[in-house]
């Protein structure tokens, strides 16, 4: 789809004023330039304890400041998520802080003689414009006329504003963990959580299906994996790609879209051979007989035929799971939107774990707790349009994809404005054409972000937020095995004319006549919250984190357990699913096969990038400057594709990628798939380092299959081929 097609709201590329100001800033940022002396501690150096925001994991960080510049970021020792260590993205976080392409001033869209451009504005003018639009749209169209899309921890204050002012708040829910959380909730009565409630460090036999544990580089999860490896854990990676995890254990190169068939096969073997935990299942689950009826046909032979995994390996893994149970685990994974039957996929994994009896056992599924700092309550806007529920029957939240569809269709009511915080919808949402079309329906878009991006180019007002290294946010009271509360605090003052989110939202609230939503300043608010647990802001600023001892993770043998499911037990057969007309036992439905000459497009993560959010970070780009398209060597030979050449990817509907991508010929993928890392291929020239580097997988994520259970967006149903022509 061509960007210029949209007349109402053109994508604004760059203004000369913008260029000039950023060029000055670039020459002023010294952190990348040469220094003749090695770093050694100087007087005046300080270390600020804070939490990271380069991804959503939120590790504790020590921010090292010298001469009022952040020069190094390391892992905070006492923070349970970092344990003194840090991932490459977090360590390169100052690449965002000193990104010369940052949004530096509020910008307002102008149209003069039909030409659209962004004009530098004062905060007063920009905020008044946003507040006026919010008020006007609210008056004209009632509550729910505006929607906010949010991603990241900084959104907490915006959510408060939305909840109090009649704005729908849409999470990025069905893009990632949604199907997994709902699938496990239907089975166990609670979700897996983030960080995941899994005891990987003590696991003896770990099966991972499609999840890039290791390459996704969630600091604590990878630390736990490493501990398990050190203790001799056996690993099994089920993946069409030879992942780094696969290299550390057994690799099952599964045919894509057959995960449910494989898990059903394993369930079949465990029940048939009576190798499941019979006592645990009798005491704590319902539906074992019906489960058996539901998987009776999933013989090892059929499983092998469907998945492409040799029958001996199917059987061997099932028996090994039983041998190592209860210290064996099917990892619930993280991103769970694959093929449109993802709740059932998650359910199948939840059921298999239940059969192993690993619930609250070393190496199994565990539950975690919050530290429990009471919130300060603010009045909520009560209106069904604002607190509405998804059209999908078992969704715990309304997904952003659903809201984009809602915007487009104008049903059940018309949406007229978007407030977009920290999420580049053009990149993050499947089916870009849908997003572009929804945008044309809108009367108003405001973006709050640190960097320009594809979505900010379509906004009417852009409010530049400062980075996480320059601001406070709310307390991080996270669910974890060692409950903790941690602080984000500024290491350096906001650069340019940027502001912390809390200030932006406070001013917006006041302009809308709401003086009761925020304290006078963030420090007073944080201190007030901490006083509720008998602590102070001063103490937390100094320590970075308060940690409670690990909660008891494991159950006693034969301990009676209670689950928040309709039956009070683990539901091997889900009563709620049946109630809504879905299969109580997950069934395998064959998915589309590759069209002739096309390859299924798979994508995933690289440890040095967090999706599209870091692909302009010069420090991280140095580690990985562009993505490549992985093609099986034999498959490439058949069509004459050469290693290292640049090609365009063409979707089966004819859509061609905006940019070309380097071919990586490898033995590490099946010959029916191609693979790339998501997050590259920015088309906004204001992102000067990441502009047109590689291809953005979202451009080719055109066919989506929506999970009828909870609305997860199945995005791995796209088939591409190659084109050399520009």
């Amino acid at each position: 789809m061509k960007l210029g097609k949209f007349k109402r709201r053109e994508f604004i590329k760059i203004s000369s004023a913008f260029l000039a100001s950023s060029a000055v800033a670039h020459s002023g940022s010294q952190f990348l330039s040469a220094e003749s002396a090695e770093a050694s501690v100087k007087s005046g150096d300080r270390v600020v304890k804070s939490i990271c925001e380069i991804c959503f994991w939120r590790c504790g960080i020590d921010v090292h400041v010298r001469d009022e510049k952040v020069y190094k970021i390391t892992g905070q020792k006492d923070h349970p998520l970092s344990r003194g260590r840090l991932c490459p993205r977090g360590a390169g976080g100052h690449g965002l802080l000193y990104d010369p392409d940052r949004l530096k001033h509020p910008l307002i869209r102008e149209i003069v003689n039909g030409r659209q451009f962004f004009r530098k504005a004062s905060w007063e003018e920009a905020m008044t414009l946003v507040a006026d639009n919010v008020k006007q749209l609210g008056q004209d169209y009632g509550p729910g006329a505006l929607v906010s899309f949010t991603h990241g921890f900084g959104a907490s204050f915006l959510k408060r504003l939305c909840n109090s002012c009649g704005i729908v708040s849409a999470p990025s829910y069905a893009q990632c963990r949604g199907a997994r959380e709902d699938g496990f909730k239907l089975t166990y009565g609670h979700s897996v959580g983030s960080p995941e409630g899994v005891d990987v460090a003590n696991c003896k036999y770990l099966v991972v299906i499609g999840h890039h544990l290791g390459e996704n580089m969630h600091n604590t999860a990878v630390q736990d994996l490493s501990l398990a490896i050190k203790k001799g854990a056996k690993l099994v990676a089920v993946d069409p790609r030879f992942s780094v995890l696969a290299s550390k254990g057994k690799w099952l190169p599964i045919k894509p879209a057959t995960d449910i068939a494989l898990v059903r096969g394993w369930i079949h073997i465990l029940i048939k051979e009576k190798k499941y935990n019979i006592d645990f299942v009798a005491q704590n689950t319902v539906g074992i007989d019906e489960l058996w009826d539901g998987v009776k046909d999933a013989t090892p032979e059929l499983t092998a035929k469907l998945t492409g995994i040799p029958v001996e390996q199917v059987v061997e893994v099932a028996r090994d799971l039983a041998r190592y149970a209860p210290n064996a685990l099917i990892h619930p994974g993280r991103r769970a939107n694959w093929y449109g039957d993802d709740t059932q996929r998650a359910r199948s994994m939840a059921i298999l774990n239940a059969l192993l009896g690993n619930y609250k056992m070393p190496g199994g599924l565990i539950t975690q707790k919050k530290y429990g700092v009471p919130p300060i309550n603010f009045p909520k806007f009560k209106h069904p349009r604002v607190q509405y529920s998804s059209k999908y029957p078992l969704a715990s939240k309304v997904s952003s994809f659903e809201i984009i569809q809602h915007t487009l269709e104008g049903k059940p009511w018309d949406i007229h404005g978007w407030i977009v915080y920290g999420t580049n919808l053009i990149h993050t949402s499947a089916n870009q054409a849908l997003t572009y079309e929804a945008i044309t329906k809108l009367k108003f878009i405001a973006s709050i972000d640190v960097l320009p991006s594809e979505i900010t180019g379509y906004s009417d007002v852009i409010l530049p937020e400062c980075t996480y290294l320059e601001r406070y946010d709310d307390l991080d009271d996270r669910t974890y095995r060692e409950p903790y509360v941690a602080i984000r605090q500024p290491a350096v003052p906001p650069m340019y004319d940027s502001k912390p989110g809390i200030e932006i939202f406070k001013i917006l609230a006041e302009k809308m006549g709401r003086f009761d939503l925020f304290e006078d300043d963030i420090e007073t608010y944080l201190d007030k919250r901490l006083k509720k647990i008998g602590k102070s802001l001063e103490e937390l600023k100094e320590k970075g984190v308060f940690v409670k001892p690990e909660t008891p993770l494991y159950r006693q043998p034969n301990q009676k357990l209670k689950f928040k499911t309709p039956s009070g037990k683990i539901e091997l057969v889900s009563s709620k699913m049946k109630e809504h007309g879905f299969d109580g036992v997950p069934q395998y439905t064959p998915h589309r096969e590759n069209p002739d000459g096309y390859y299924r497009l798979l994508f995933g993560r690289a440890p040095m990038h967090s999706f599209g959010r870091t692909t302009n970070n010069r420090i991280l780009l140095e580690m990985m400057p562009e993505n490549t398209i992985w093609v099986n060597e034999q498959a490439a030979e058949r069509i004459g594709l050469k290693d290292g050449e640049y090609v365009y990817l063409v979707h089966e509907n004819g859509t061609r990628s905006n940019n070309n991508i380097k071919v990586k010929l490898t033995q590490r993928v099946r010959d029916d798939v191609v693979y790339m890392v998501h997050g590259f291929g920015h088309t906004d020239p204001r992102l000067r380092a990441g502009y047109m580097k590689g291809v953005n997988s979202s451009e080719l994520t055109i066919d989506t299959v929506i999970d009828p259970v909870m609305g997860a967006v199945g995005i791995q149903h796209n088939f591409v081929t190659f084109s050399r022509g520009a």
Partner: protein
Amino acid sequence: MANQDKKYAMIIDTRNCVGCTACVIACKSENSVPMGFCRDWVDQIVKGHYPRLTLVNRSDRCQHCEDAPCVTNCPTGASFYPGDGTVIVDRSKCTGCKACLAACPYDARYVHPSGFVDKCSFCRHRLLTGKTTTACTSICPTNALTLVDLNSSDGLADRLMDGREVVQDKTHAGTHPKLFWLL
């Protein structure tokens, strides 16, 4: 000079390493390594054919050789052994002549834009303040990197290597390198 009783070396457990490059970024921040250069790096070595493959991530850097060709071939004495097992470049003596770059079998050195030759120092500035870790070993999320003192009686090096296949790079060059990879 300090730490004269030490003999620093590094043990790298490839079984744990996921190839994330946190070691590279931590080093670059710690040592102000300019854009486009690095003191350490990660090699990903893939062997075999589908579906029987192996992959090893190998975090690599200067080997701090006991018989270092860079020291032997340095005309100004800028590359030297300070006596703690490390090989160091004295920037004030370095003319940037690149004799060491040609001599080093491990391609561990680069010419800094300021004119001197630079490479991994095992973060000697940290060791001199009593720290026992380098920037890379301390950041590594998988705890795959360990700085050890081969002269120490703490047994750490032996414990890490016990029962493991240990490989070294280009031992035939007679350099007595001090990086040990565990497979």
